């Protein structure tokens, strides 16, 4: 099958690579761009391990063709920390609150929570539980993930006050 060039912005950098029109975004990211943070867990859009941020929305990248991301801005787990390596509050909070075990759902979970906290900076426990219900975890039972997201929300909202 013939390939087409796809150009988009990934984690702040302009990238261009060739892919077949049928290539899924998750395969494009993982195999062409070597961004192996997002994972594949189900192929049917249920598990959320492949979650990335696409033009300001959480998207399951196994449900999108790479070519649909032409011209888009994509953020993966690799682009969540600051360029200088400073971790995002969510990355810190997941470690502090034991919000991960095998780590396989973690990139998708954090990427989803990253968008959730922009949509709703002060979520209730229930908001968080519904907000991450498209992301499955088999290890943690979610309790510590919820705690971690609550802690990150608090850290993120308290930053401007601290700066004042």
């Amino acid at each position, binding site marked *: *099958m013939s390939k087409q060039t796809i150009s988009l912005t990934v984690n702040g950098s302009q990238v261009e690579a060739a892919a*077949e029109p*049928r*290539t899924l975004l998750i*395969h494009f990211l*993982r*195999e062409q761009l*070597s*961004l*192996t*943070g*997002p*994972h*594949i*867990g*189900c*192929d*049917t859009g*249920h*598990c959320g*391990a492949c979650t990335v941020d696409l033009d300001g929305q959480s998207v399951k990248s196994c449900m999108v063709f790479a070519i649909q991301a032409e011209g888009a801005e994509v953020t*993966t*787990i*690799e682009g*969540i*920390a600051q360029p200088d390596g400073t*971790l995002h509050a*969510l*990355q810190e909070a*997941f*470690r*502090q609150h*034991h919000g*991960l*075990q*095998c*780590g*396989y*759902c*973690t*990139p998708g979970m*954090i990427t989803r929570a990253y968008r959730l906290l922009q949509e709703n900076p002060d979520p209730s426990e229930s908001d*968080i*539980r*519904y907000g*991450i*219900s*498209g*992301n*499955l*975890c*088999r*290890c*943690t*039972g*979610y*309790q*510590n*993930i*919820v705690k971690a997201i609550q802690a990150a929300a608090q850290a993120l909202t308290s930053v401007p006050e601290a700066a004042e």
Partner: protein
Amino acid sequence: MNEQTPLASERAEKLEGLGCARKRVEDARFTQGKGNYVDDIKLPGMLFGDFVRSPYGHARIKGIDKEAALAVPGVLAVITAEDLIPLNLHYMPTLAGDVQAVLAHEKVLFQNQEVAFVVATDRYAAADGVELVEVDYEELPVVVDAAKAMEADAPLLREDIKDKSEGAHGPRKHHNHIFYWDAGDAEATKAALSSAEVVAEEFITYQRVHPCPLETCGCVASMDKINGKLTVWGTFQAPHAVRTVASLISNIPEHNIRIISPDIGGGFGNKVGVYPGYICAIVASIVTGQPVKWIEDRIENLSSTAFARDYHMTGKIAATKDGRITGLWCHVLADHGAFDACADPTKFPAGFFHICTGSYDIPVAYVGVDGVYTNKAPGGVAYRCSFRVTEGSYFIERMIDVLARKLEMDPAELRVKNLIRKEQFPYTSALGWEYDSGDYHTAMQKAMESVDYRALRQEQAANRAAFAAGETRSLMGVGVAFFTEIVGAGPVKNCDILGLGMFDSCEIRVHPTGSAIARLGTISQGQGHATTFAQILASEIGLPADKITVEEGDTDTAPYGLGTYGSRSTPVAGAATAMAGRKIRAKAQMIAAYLLEVHDDDLEWEVDRFQVKGNPEKFKTMAEIAFAAYNQAIPGIEPGLEAVSYYDPPNMTYPFGAYICVVDVDVDTGVTEVRRFYALDDCGTRINPMVIEGQVHGGLTEALAIAMGQEIAYDEIGNVKGASLMDFFLPTAVETPNWETDHTVTPSPHHPIGAKGVGESPNVGGVSAFSNAVIDAFAHLGLTHSQMPHDHWRVWTVAEQLGLHD
């Protein structure tokens, strides 16, 4: 020194050893997307393999046409059983003494069975090739029910062994029979039943489920033809065992095989077995001379690699009128699918199911298990439990509730009355296990007080009255479960897998500057071994956990071990770690004696140092000793500071716990809401409370999934129903309640640090607690049992059958 030496307790705290809620060292890479899972591996020239699978549950293969597939650009090879026969690889040995088809030979025995392996330059080309392989099938009669498989005129499934009247575990009494295995005293149990004041009976099914880790199974096989070395990266819970098996079946010398388990995205038993994909990837790499990757998709995962349970249990429990249990009888019809690929220690074809007298002092018992072939996927793994312990625990915990109804006793009271008493330990059960330790009554009492059990029952009585009066359509259920696990397989004298004794190992090298690396025969799949094993060692050798690297999963560097499953890592490899640490300390003591110019016996160990008895100002820290080990010529002592321990446990460990679950059932929708779940676990010495709690949360959530929704079901013509995440229930954060955790500590008397293992306890105890709670909601209306999973439809059906919708 001007500085005051910190107190021993302060120094101990800095080590972050046993008991510390140490943050995990694994998390930095996982939270940044820098884990290294098998599908992340990319090698130059790497090819992809994909399977052609059977659409039928039972069919004869009349022919396979590869031509169209081979014409697809990028497709390099299509491998079938015919290609494997000359290599004698069309069948492979299973862990249970049977053989399993690597690629179907002459016929297929379950839907989605592997028929051909297409190798191509990328995964899309491989998938195109799979579409175009034409297989001509002739359908055969299907049997997916274990009882029907044993009928006289049932279709013959395993033609390859039809003349074998003797299987790996004794005589076969029918063409679809695998084994009969039993334990206990049949005559005495019959006598107890016939003379009993009360006998309760029930037929209890533990449905077929699947561990479904978020990462599916897969591997990358790379045969280096120049140096003759085969390297396989894969989702292996037991890398050394895989190496030995690979060597035995491929005839590649074992030193020329390197098995690497990289990061593993959850296992839960799914990744213990050896699957056709691994063999095919290896063969394809040998044939093509290039690395070959095989990664199963979710449907393949749920329908072909491993299943769990599928136990159909008939039980009888005898008791006195006042509730003293006098005997237990159980017969199991065990559906093993098309090949007996159960992952159990060799001598235990039904695993440790005979832990099924549970936590109770039952004088006589008998268990018999018939293993049966059906047209379903092979497997029979321990899904987050030690070999068939979940089935055994579910059986007894349901039987206790059934008996309680018959006696009109409170189920918690009946349990308390029959729990093994503290002074009875070590306790030998009627089915032959020696329980090492326990304090069940303390745990049960703490659990009942914590939830105010009496108040819950009062609330339930009020709810029932309100329901009867038509004031509510919701019924409250209270589920009680008290479980005893049997983990840490196991003593080499009676536990082996394919002849390999189930010891485990740890090798420690202390570096000159006071840091160390420990390598183990186990492999973490999320349990956090790199964090917790460093803690065990920190307490043993007095170096900070942060200065200890824990490495697992590479057979070229790690000492031989049997891997991680059955909660065996802490009981066995954790013990090896402590013992190897003690060897380090023994040598360190001699070095310290030399440095301090005293006799060995004049020294005592304190936290991180050897000090002169009665003169603690004179000491050498472990870091100082480590340096001396590399820079001083000490008479009679070899340089260096290393140790290795192979630990053969004297017994299993027996973690236990008391769980109480409260549910509210909407009788009109069947929707069950878990209002409260309290879990008290006793796993002996607690290494890292944070990690333990995380394990309990996760195990309870898997238990919730099993009890309330998971099932790998088949229709009558062998179609597997629900083998994708569209249908197979994995709870989201919305269905999952908040878990209340608690603990008591009863150290194992034979484990070097008293630890027992915990990862699987919540699954073992949790399923019973959920199931008991749902059934309890209807108990006052006469319901004694209802088969899992208690999904909305089934619960609605229960309400319907009880006339609650009239």
